């Protein structure tokens, strides 16, 4: 049963979305207003299916001037149905997945007895239900609705970070080749790939440290280059290698970062002390970083990245060098940060951790995206039990056992 307040909100949203069907694209999009918490709650409740995007060269999206768009999948068995349909048409779901045409819209009724949790989720669900009834359709592939929801998500923090056809060439050699994906608030997006696949290059482009050869990187719907300084204020980055100034102590480094970020002195020094205590660095805070272990350096980087409470957190191999205890803390921290509405883009080679932490993964191979989906769906699509198996199939070309044997033979010779 919907509560009255939820129904009111649902009706309001339905009106907004319905209004979008008649209004011109941009003007209608501006009127759409759903509290940020709605989207965040939704993405937490429906991490696998709801809000899952259909990406591709959609005619509808092009008509509305949005090259990448999302269609809400409201039913819970939809992906299965979609894949079955493709199977029937003779298409290989894995190959299809590689083309990044992952989802198809269809609408079924909600699972009986499903607890929708927070009111916001119920409200949006209600809105969509009303809309369905109103249009007497079981298909939500309506262009206007898709664009409406997409724009709502963009504006309210749903798709916060978006890469559109990003390229990076080094001396003509492509390192990143037509990479497009999005990362949403409240979600941990895993960014995987073998060594040299272009992960760190992508990360550096997202931070603004290196320029892309072509493409667009958007944050909250705006190209990051439009106001790079404002963007940097909202972003925290843990780089792949723990490069720090060795002649400074841990506390000196963090204080310098706080000063460079223009954080209030009192507040930042309290925050630094707190972070150093929680990360077990407090006793060595005045020691030179040159003496720090790799794990301690990694903790300094993590503290520096979180010091200013960023909205976007880019983690490039954050578990490198951390001991088991610290790694467990970091894993929980990443989930907690996502739960608090941060956008977390997380690159790692530790697939077990990725499987536990990430709600979605983007797999890169030779600079190109070969998969972009939830882990559960990838498992289902590829009929493989673990992320490791999926990763091996998509991104590892060598016969690892044979290669190991060759190495052993070589040193024996």
């Amino acid at each position, binding site marked *: 049963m919907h509560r009255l307040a939820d129904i009111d909100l649902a009706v309001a949203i339905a009106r907004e979305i319905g209004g979008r069907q008649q209004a011109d694209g941009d003007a209608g999009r501006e009127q759409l207003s759903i509290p940020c918490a709605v989207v965040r709650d939704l993405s937490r409740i429906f991490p696998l299916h709801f809000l899952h995007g259909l990406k591709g060269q959609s005619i509808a999206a092009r008509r509305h001037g949005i*090259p990448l768009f999302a269609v809400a999948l409201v039913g819970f068995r939809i992906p299965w149905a979609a894949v079955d349909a493709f199977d029937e048409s003779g298409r290989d779901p894995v190959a299809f997945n590689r083309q990044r045409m992952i989802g198809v819209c269809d609408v079924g009724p909600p699972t009986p007895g499903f607890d929708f949790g927070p009111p916001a989720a119920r409200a949006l669900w209600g809105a969509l239900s009303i809309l369905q009834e109103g249009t007497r359709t079981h298909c939500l592939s309506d262009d206007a609705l898709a664009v409406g929801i997409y724009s709502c998500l963009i504006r309210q923090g749903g798709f916060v970070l978006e890469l*559109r*056809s990003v*390229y990076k*060439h080094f001396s003509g050699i492509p390192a990143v080749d*037509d990479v497009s994906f999005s990362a949403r608030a409240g979600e941990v997006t895993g960014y995987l790939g073998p060594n040299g696949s272009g992960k760190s290059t992508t990360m550096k482009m997202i*931070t*603004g*440290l290196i320029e892309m*050869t*072509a*493409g*667009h990187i958007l944050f909250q719907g705006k190209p990051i280059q439009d106001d790079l*300084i404002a963007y*940097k*204020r909202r*972003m925290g*980055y843990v*780089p792949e*290698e723990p*490069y*720090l*100034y*060795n*002649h*400074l*102590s841990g*506390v*000196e480094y963090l*204080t*310098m*970062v*706080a*000063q*460079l*970020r*223009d*954080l209030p*002195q009192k507040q930042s020094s309290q925050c630094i002390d707190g972070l150093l205590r929680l990360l077990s660095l407090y*006793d*060595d*805070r*005045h*020691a*030179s970083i*040159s*003496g*720090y*272990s790799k794990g301690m350096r990694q903790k300094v980087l993590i503290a*520096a990245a979180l010091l200013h409470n960023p909205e976007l957190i880019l983690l490039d191999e954050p578990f490198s060098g951390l001991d088991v205890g610290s790694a467990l803390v970091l894993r929980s921290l990443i989930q907690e940060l996502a739960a608090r509405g941060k956008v977390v883009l997380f690159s790692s080679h530790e697939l077990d951790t990725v499987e536990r932490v990430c709600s979605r993964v983007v797999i890169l191979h030779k600079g190109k995206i070969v998969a972009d989906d939830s882990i559960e769906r990838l498992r289902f699509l590829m009929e493989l039990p673990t992320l490791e198996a999926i990763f091996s199939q998509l991104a590892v070309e060598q016969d690892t056992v044979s290669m190991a044997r060759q190495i052993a033979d070589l040193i024996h010779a």
Partner: protein
Amino acid sequence: MRKLVELLPLQVRILYRQFLLRVVDLEALSIQADIPRFLGQFASVLVFISLVGAIGLLTSETATATPEGYLSFVWRGEQALISGMMLVVGLIAVISWDSTFPDRRDVMVLSPLPVAAHTILLAKVAASSALLGLAVLTLNFATGLAWPLLIGSHHGSIWGFFQSFAAYWFAMIAASIFVYGSVLTVQGFTALLLPRRIFLRSSAILQIVAFGLVLGVYFLQPSITTPAAMAVPENQWVLAWSPSFWFFGLFNQLNGSLPVALGWLARRGWIALGVVISGATASLLLCYLRTMKKTVEEPDLVPGARGWHWTPRVGNALQTAIVLFSLRSLTRSRQHRVVFAFYLAGVLGFALSSLRTALSTTAQRPLSADFLIATFMMMTLAVAGLRMVFSLPISLTANWIWRLTQLRPPEKYVAATRRSLVLLAVIPVWFISAMLSLSFRPLHAIAAHLVVLAVVGWIFIELSLIGLYKVPFTCSYLPGKVHVQVMLWVFLFLLLILAMSTAELEMPSLNDAGRYMCLIAILGTGALGVLAFNRHRAKSAVLYFEELPPDVITTLGLVAVRPSISKINMDNSHERRDLL
């Protein structure tokens, strides 16, 4: 030298080359990691100094007509040559600080390999000796021949020349070994006696102390050039405790020209040499036998000093960050300390010379042009040295944090760099100058000069900031761009002329209010002009972290009609494919 090196075992030769690279500290000197080239440049500078010295000695002999005059001339020359040699070797010892002892990197890299400790020791000693040998040889290249010729000719026989020649070179080598060995002994026993974590912390302090000591002794010790002056009771303390006089005695003893009354000086020289050689050998052996294992066992993580850690605010957050970063880089990085020490040596030299003059008399003197020149030189050397050191990166890989946190326009960074120069160069030099000027009178002239000095410092800062759109210690530099050895002499020559001209202009104006105001107005206008120019340029500047080499390919611009790839709407995949 190459043939000598080839006599060493293969492992020693390989390690010798690696260690020589680190003794020289190529990165700090920017010479494209080319050891022979660097050593060639280093040798040529010392040869040049030696040639100038030899010419000076040979041409000044004519002024020594009387036996007393001749003796005074010879003793002054010998003392200058020996103390000069000790200064150069002392500075080399400071520059190559810690390089003869195994550090943690050596131990961690070489211990797992089948390399014996004595092989590492031999390679280290060979590398240090190569540099030291080169310095001794080249610095005495001309004087080592001219001086024995000069004094040998008074013996009237060829034997006299050979005796002087042998005495000269032995005394020079002994003095060099004494200085270098003293540094090794102190370092070695400090490493042995102190816990490693405390040693790591105290080593940098010891280096600074050694630097000050070497310069202080050179500039403060008097020249005692007559037997009568040697016998004066007030000079006995200096003679007894200043090593250059011991080796002066040693040289004259070997040359057969030492008065019997001064035999104790030569004895001190021999004893000192013996003690230092034994001490250095023992400390080196003990370090390699004992400390190498200790180095692996003991962590390098030095706990921070307990107590108060004060972080002063020196402006806004960015200015504080950059000033403190600069100060810490300067004081904690060996490379930067060494390069800055080169300029600081000049500053301290002028300061100590002024101090020596001030100490030599109790009476208050009128302000002299020499003092004005000395203060100008100190100021400009300090600013130029700091500006030079700012250009040397401390860790290029760690610079990403500056790029990531670049939240303010470039002019704010330039302002912060300006503040660093003011706080780390101008204010300390100004303060030292003020202290040194206390022995002069009248006070109003001193105050007036200190104002001029401050404005001159400001002008130099603004001049050094032209085109400097980078954070200190962060930007890479093009190897080979900074030809220190050539540029330095040109710079010093021009600087001296400039300082003399400024002093000449200033001196009469100190007692003439009208002229003084005019001078201040001109200097102030100049400073404001450069400041305005810098501020204007900084507004449109882009902060850079990497110096790029100039294009070697001339672009004809014939492809300008084609739009750049980044400007094209990449949504159109067909167009993109065509372009790529």
